[in-house]
């Protein structure tokens, strides 16, 4: 079973905390302080972005920061994408070609995946698979 931890996204600061999911490799030795070396999904997403997306990434982060501060956001920038019948709320943040997918937990948002406009279907599938694995992992701990 996959192991996860949550890490606070330091660029986002508000009334609501934003965390990123950190997927732990199977061979990780937690006693050796290896955890610091493992990047979260949001940090990895930022690092993998091409230079042309850096500006959009700053806008996307600013949008998430507004959500963290419970400030108004255009429906074109943020929407609830929770499927009918699903209990844990799902959020999508958008700015131009970039997307961020997260879930609502008590007084926090957990960012599970960063994605692209032209890969929405695949990203959504991957996001929901990761979400299910994460929720399963916290059920058993």
């Amino acid at each position, binding site marked *: 079973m996959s192991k996860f931890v949550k890490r606070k996204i330091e660029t986002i600061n508000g009334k609501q905390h934003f965390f990123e999911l950190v997927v732990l490799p199977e061979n990780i030795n937690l006693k050796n302080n290896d955890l610091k070396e493992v990047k979260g999904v949001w940090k990895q997403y930022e690092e993998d972005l091409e230079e042309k997306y850096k500006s959009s990434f700053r806008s996307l982060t600013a949008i998430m920061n507004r959500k963290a501060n419970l400030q*108004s956001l255009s429906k074109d920038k943020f929407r609830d994408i929770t499927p009918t019948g699903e209990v844990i709320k799902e959020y999508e943040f958008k700015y131009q070609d970039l997307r961020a997918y997260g879930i609502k937990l008590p007084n926090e948002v957990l960012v599970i995946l960063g994605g692209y406009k032209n890969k929405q279907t695949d990203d959504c599938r991957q996001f929901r698979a990761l979400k299910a694995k994460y929720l399963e992992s916290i059920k058993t701990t």
Partner: protein
Amino acid sequence: MNREDLLRSKEYWMVQVQNELYGVIENYMKKNNLNRTGFADKIGVSRGYVTQVLKGDFDHKISKLVELSLSVNKAPVVNFIDLDTFVKNDANNLTYEIYPIYREETISFANQKVNSKFYNSYTNLIPADETKVEAVLISSN
């Protein structure tokens, strides 16, 4: 990118202005039971223009920003805060709010115009030493 980089970026501030504008217009439309077409007709612009504003993508002239603001009965109060101070305060979880305060009286003292609040506080502290008042000088003739 760290928090400071975000706060010092153009993208952060564009998102703030665009989504604040979105918020006041959306509220106005709800309160007055107007759809996009109705609101566009009321303020004399095209529906497409309203759609752009409501997408949080407003990037027009300052005069348009002011017109939109006034059309929803909002005063576009603008404040410029020293960015270094803003970043420093943000790191200490201090945020900014705009609230009304009484206009301060300027009074004449020792042939100079001084702020009454400072005058009173200084004269209470150092009643006999008039020269100290120069430290709180607001303007002189």
